[in-house]
């Protein structure tokens, strides 16, 4: 118990250092940028004295360590600067864009988890059969297919050719601004407002981007599930269970699968963090107003405060998810006690 607490404390202590590193990296990127932050604020036709005053206000005349200190204290007080593009504080922008990404990524990870575990178990219990081969090819495709190509092909097939699903965007035009924003999650907001047509419209718009986004994680989860299950199914307690005459599904799900649950939770948390990456490309194609799109649009507008703020937030989420995965693993696996 004591050793376990010690390990937890060590993990917890490493977090501030990593976060400090994150801030250092974004600060460094912000300094090498060829865009003059003063011109970004006052515009390139401002008179010389305005430029000089802005430079002083931004603290750019001070030495680097002083600038870093200022940047760090700003961040700790929740000040990520002001976006040039939207002229809102970056923090507010991120808070507004984040729910859309959260909704997308959460649905994607649910799809990926359910299907991935199902496929993985299926492949492991039929090792070497054609089912196993199909799953294997499917997993390899998931690892190799660029998410933006998949997104474009999906739009082409399900929207343009078959017409089964709506095109890019988060809502149909009829439902635009009809539902009051409470949580920022379109489906939940519509459900809370008891507006079921809007709810189904939001779901229909979610299916395609979430499906595309989940593909990569699905492949990874299926691959890992298969590997974990194969290791379990080879062990002696499975032979014992079979000798006792237990039914095969019971052995697979109640005995073997239970033992893979702990590492699988870790895998799912880690892929959930990885979804943020795919979200950048998916959101760009599906015109999904989330954090990824905010990041790319700010990038193309050279809005450095917004880019660095979003990068920092994504890094923070990534670290927290990794930490959670680690903690859950320690809490759930009796061997680490």
């Amino acid at each position: 118990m004591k050793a376990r607490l010690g390990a937890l404390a060590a993990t917890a202590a490493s977090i501030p250092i990593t976060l400090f590193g994150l801030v250092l990296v974004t600060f460094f990127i912000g300094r090498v940028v060829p865009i003059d932050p003063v011109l970004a604020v006052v515009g390139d036709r401002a008179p010389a004295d305005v430029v000089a005053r802005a430079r002083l206000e931004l603290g750019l005349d001070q030495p680097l360590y002083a600038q870093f200190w200022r940047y760090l204290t700003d961040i700790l007080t929740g000040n990520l600067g002001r976006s040039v593009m939207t002229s809102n504080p970056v923090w507010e922008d991120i808070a507004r864009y984040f729910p859309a990404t959260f909704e997308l990524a959460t649905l994607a990870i649910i799809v990926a988890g359910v299907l991935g575990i199902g496929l993985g178990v299926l492949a492991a219990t039929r090792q070497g059969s054609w089912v196993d081969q199909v799953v294997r090819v499917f997993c390899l495709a998931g690892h190799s297919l660029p998410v933006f190509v998949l997104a474009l092909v999906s739009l082409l097939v399900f929207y343009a050719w078959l017409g089964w699903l709506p095109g890019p965007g988060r809502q149909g035009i009829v439902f635009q601004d009809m539902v009051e924003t409470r949580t920022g999650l379109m489906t939940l907001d519509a459900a809370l407002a008891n507006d079921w047509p809007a709810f189904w419209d939001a779901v229909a718009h979610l299916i395609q981007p979430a499906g595309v986004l989940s593909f990569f994680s699905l492949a990874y989860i299926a691959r890992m599930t298969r590997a974990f299950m194969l290791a379990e199914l080879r062990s002696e307690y499975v032979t014992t269970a079979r000798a006792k005459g237990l039914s095969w599904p019971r052995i697979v799900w109640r005995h073997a699968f239970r033992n893979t649950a702990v590492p699988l939770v870790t895998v799912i948390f880690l892929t959930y963090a990885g979804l943020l990456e795919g979200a950048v490309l998916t959101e760009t194609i599906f015109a999904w107003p989330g954090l990824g799109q905010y990041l790319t649009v700010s990038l193309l507008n050279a809005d450095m405060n917004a880019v660095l703020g979003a990068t920092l937030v994504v890094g923070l989420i990534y670290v927290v998810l990794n930490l959670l995965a680690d903690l859950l693993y320690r809490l759930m696996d009796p061997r680490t006690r």
Partner: protein
Amino acid sequence: MSDPASPMADVATATAAIEPIAPDAVPEAAGAPPPPQAGAASGRRAWLLTDAPASRAQAAWGRRYQAWLAFRRNPLAMAGLGVILLMLLLILLAPVLATHDPGIQELGNRLAAPSSAHWLGTDELGRDVWSRLLYGGRITLGMVVAVVLLVAPVGLLVGCVAGYAGGLWDRLLMRVTDVFLAFPRLILALAFVAAMGPGVESAVIAIALTAWPPYARLARAETLTIRHTDYVAAARMTGASPARVVLRHVLPMCLPSLVVRVTLDMSSIILTAAGLGFLGLGAQPPLPEWGTMIATARRFILEQWWVAVMPGVAIFAASLAFNLLGDGLRDVLDPKQR
């Protein structure tokens, strides 16, 4: 492989071939080339497969040959290798194989469907897609090679030094790797490109900056097991300097797992490079990079879908081939990584 008896027959001929040669081979000098008298092919095979190598070179080549034999038994990995070699050949011979100049515009023939004149159709400026794919492969795959050449030595060195030196150095270097691992790769690369301005060079540097930490981790883990081996202790006792121990005795042992990791990583580097290109941050138009080509053709996806899909297929094929090759190499070179 359809003949079930063939592996047995192989073994039989191999052992039969060894018998007459073995007495000759042993008295001969170290590293001697295979004796020619037993028929060139089987003689070389026997020389490579002998249980009693007469020299270090023979043992080393024998080991490599056996790895190759094991690798050759994996059809998927061989397919991956084949696709990669084919792609390299295609892009090297691009000037010969291209039917058009990749930059020449033919505005009267925009967005044409594939035909005998334009095998894969034309893009929005009437440029030949097939020729652009060939030349674009030079940029996309060139970027990947550049990233690997930048990243692998750095990661290897950082990992070996951290693992071998231990203590403060280890903690410091690993903390730095942790920070870089704390960002999703594409997002950190995006931020770096934003700072350096879009282009092929900054995309390569940005991807390299985000790609080295896993190699450092891997090399460190390998080094930690190697540094306590007897042969390292022996090398130290003969007075070898730490630099010599790391460079000559530790680093080479990390290479196989590094090669496997690099091959498996190639596909993710391809996807990141293409992703940056797609977002307009990699190669700039009119350069025919695969991701950039998809970005410009994206607007026509609903009508002239082939313009965007063709480069997509190329990216998919390259990335899949590297995954297959990497899987095969891992089974052969580094079975414990499975």
